[in-house]
Structure formats: structure tokens, C-alpha cells
């Protein structure tokens, strides 16, 4: 099958590549662009390790063809920190609250939690759990992940109040 061009913006940079239509977005990011933060986990749309933010939605990039993301704005874990390297509130929260053990699920967790907090800036613990229900962690038992998201929400909200 012939390759076709695909254009999108990934972590603020415009990219253009020729791809086979069957190339999945996760492989496009990892193998064509060298963006290896999103992980290949279950490959069956369950685990959420491949989660990226695509046009304001949390998406499992193993279940989307790169060609379906034509023109999209994509943010991965690589795009979460400030330009000067300062960690985002969520990244800091996962560090402070020990929200990871092996770390394999963490890029997906943080990327998903990023969108969750944009949609619901002050979630209850139950809303955090439902909001992250598409992301599996096999190490932590989720307690510290919930705490990490709570930490980030509190920090972001405190910053917002201070600014007002």
C-alpha cells in the first residue's frame, strides 16, 4: 500500500511524515518521532499506558491510526513540563506522593489526569478514581496515584486563588 502524508502538531512542534495508513498513532509517535513517553502496554485498548492528549481528549494512541490524527494537536508526557524543565503540578505530585513504583503506567496516568483536572479542577477522590478508570497500574494499588492527583489539584487551585 502506498504511503500518504500526515501532518500534526506534537508538543507544540509541527511534524509531517509519510506513513502507511495502517500505522498506529503510538508507533508513529515512538518510532517515527522518537517520542517514547507514551508506552505500548496491553495493545488492546485497556491499560491506558499509551494515553496522549489529542485535540482536548484523552486518547489511547494504540487504538487510533496516525492518519486519523491529521491536523490534530497532540500533547504527550514530554509536553507536560515547563520549557525550563520545571515539573508540572501533576509530575511534582506523582514524585511527592510516591504515585509510582515501576513507572510504566505513569506517562499515561499523568497525561490522563492532566485532562481530568482541566475538565474538573476540584474532583473528589471518587471522581479521580472514575476519571482514571481507563488507566491500569499493577504496582501501587492506586492509593498514592489518587493522592498525587489530589496534590496537583490542590496546588493548581491554590495558585489560581493566589492569582485572584
Amino acid at each position, binding site marked *: 500500500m502506498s504511503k500518504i502524508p500526515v501532518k500534526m502538531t506534537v508538543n507544540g512542534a509541527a511534524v509531517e511524515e509519510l506513513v*502507511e495508513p*495502517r500505522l498506529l498513532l503510538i508507533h508513529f509517535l515512538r518510532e517515527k518521532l522518537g517520542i517514547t513517553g507514551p508506552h505500548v502496554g496491553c495493545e*488492546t485498548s485497556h491499560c491506558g499506558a499509551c494515553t496522549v492528549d489529542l485535540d482536548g*481528549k484523552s486518547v489511547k494512541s494504540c487504538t*487510533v*491510526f496516525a492518519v486519523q490524527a*491529521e491536523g490534530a494537536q497532540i500533547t504527550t508526557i514530554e509536553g507536560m513540563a515547563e520549557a525550563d524543565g520545571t515539573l508540572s503540578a501533576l509530575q511534582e505530585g506523582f514524585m511527592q506522593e510516591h504515585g509510582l513504583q515501576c513507572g510504566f503506567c505513569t506517562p499515561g496516568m499523568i497525561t490522563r489526569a492532566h485532562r481530568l483536572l482541566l475538565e474538573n479542577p476540584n474532583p473528589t477522590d471518587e471522581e479521580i478514581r*472514575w476519571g482514571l*478508570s481507563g488507566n491500569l497500574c499493577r504496582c501501587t494499588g492506586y492509593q498514592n496515584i489518587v493522592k498525587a492527583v489530589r496534590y496537583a489539584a490542590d496546588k493548581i487551585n491554590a495558585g489560581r486563588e493566589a492569582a485572584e
Partner: protein
Amino acid sequence: MIPGPFEYHRPGSVDEALALLARHGEDGRVIAGGHSLVPMMKLRLAAPAHLIDLRNLAELRGIREADGSLEIGAMTTQHEVIESELLQALCPILRETALMIADPQVRYCGTLGGNVANGDPGNDMPAVMQCLGASYLVRNASGQREIPARDFYEGAYFTALGEDEILTAVRIPRPPEGQGQAYEKMKRKVGDYATAAAAVALSLDGGTCSQAAIALTNLGQTPIFAEAASQALVGSSLDEAAVAEAVRLAREAADPVEDLRGPADFKRHAAGVMVQRAVARARERASA
């Protein structure tokens, strides 16, 4: 897991998409949210030579109220169903059901049209549509027709949708004022299909049930509109005996097969429990 090769098309109008479908016949498949089709393609259970992406078709989007019905474009995502204040006000069972489908990521992509058109007996919206007396608007190059959800499903993955047709919208008669609705789903974990699920809509007139509809998910090769069970409630005060009879008839209508979710007898039992709970909640929500 790498899907088989295919040629990718991104038509700019429904007419163009229909022309592509007509040209490629059984080698063509439309893709909406892709969260049923892409996993099938990765497993090579589906290998369309031509993939026709509906993403740019604005005609297939949007939620409207018109002429006593709710019309929901096929490309409306489950997330958009959940966020819709119009649907929450007029037909809250849709939000309740959408929240039980898969997980947040899947719901951002998965569409209502895909959920009802795919023919997977595990999908939740088909039984809800049967319960609500909805119909599907479908188009091919020569015109449009409307198929009642209760007549649409023929077998697992077999539906009344022709090879050259696209399901463009779902039309739901506006539920009567005061109708109580509920969807009860037993599942093993987030993201799983139902072990058993039941959709119920009913109306009360004074203390008497004046209208009722019950439909079942994943309890047979197709969603099941449990007509006799529905009728058992009508005219009753939803007393214990009437509900028990509806539960018995719903179990009789169910035709489950054994799988990892349990043996057939267990699922039939669970079907009755789901019906009982959904009737109780629909009743609480109905205003007399």
C-alpha cells in the same frame, strides 16, 4: 499488533462516503470512533481493503430536538452524550448508560452510531434504543430509510444495515413527561461488557403503570426487547407480583450462552435481578 494493509479515504460529504462504499462493496468499511473496528483490525478479525473515515462529516454530528423526537447524529461520541444537557433533561438514561461504557478514553472516541450499528451483542446502547422505541436513519446512494431498533438486529454482527448504507442518525421519540428510566448493568470490571444488563422505561398514571418497556443487553445474539415482560407491568401498580412476573418473562426472553462471565443459568438469573433493580429505580424516578 499490526492490522492488515488498507487504503485510507477521508470523504468530505456523506454523498462522497456513500459513493466510496458503493464502489468498494464488501471491501469497504466506514470508521467512526474506531474503538470497535481498530481492535478487530489489530486482531485481523476485520481486514477491510478500504477504510472510509467519517470524521470530517459535519452532517453526522449534533444533537437536535425536532418534531417530537430527539435526533442524535451518528458521530456523536459517548462523551458528548454524557455532556449534553438537552439529553440529560429529556432522556437521562442515555447519560446513565454512556457512563457505564468502557472508560473515559474510549468514551471520547466511541460514537453512538458505531455502538448501535456494529451489531456486537455486548454493546449497551442497542437495548436502550429498543427500550425507548428509537429508530435508525440510514442512507445509501439512492436514498434514506428509517429502521426501528427493535427490527434492526439479526444476529451477532448481523444487522439490517446494507453493505452500501451508512447509519447517519438515531431518532428517539421524545419520552413522555414524567417517564422514569433506568439502565442496570452487572459487569466484572470497568471496560468489560455486561454479564447481564437491563434498560427500563415506564410511566405512572396515578398509582398505575400506564406504559413500560424492558430490553436486555448481552443476553443473546442480539439485544432483546422483552415485550411480554414489558406488558406484564402495564396496568399494574408495580406490586411485587407484577414485577415478579415481569422478571420471570424477561428471564424467559433471555437466551445467554456460557462464557468467561459465567454459565447460562447464572446470566439468566442475573438478567432477572437487573430487571428488578431497573424497574425499582425507574419507578422512583417516574412522577405519577
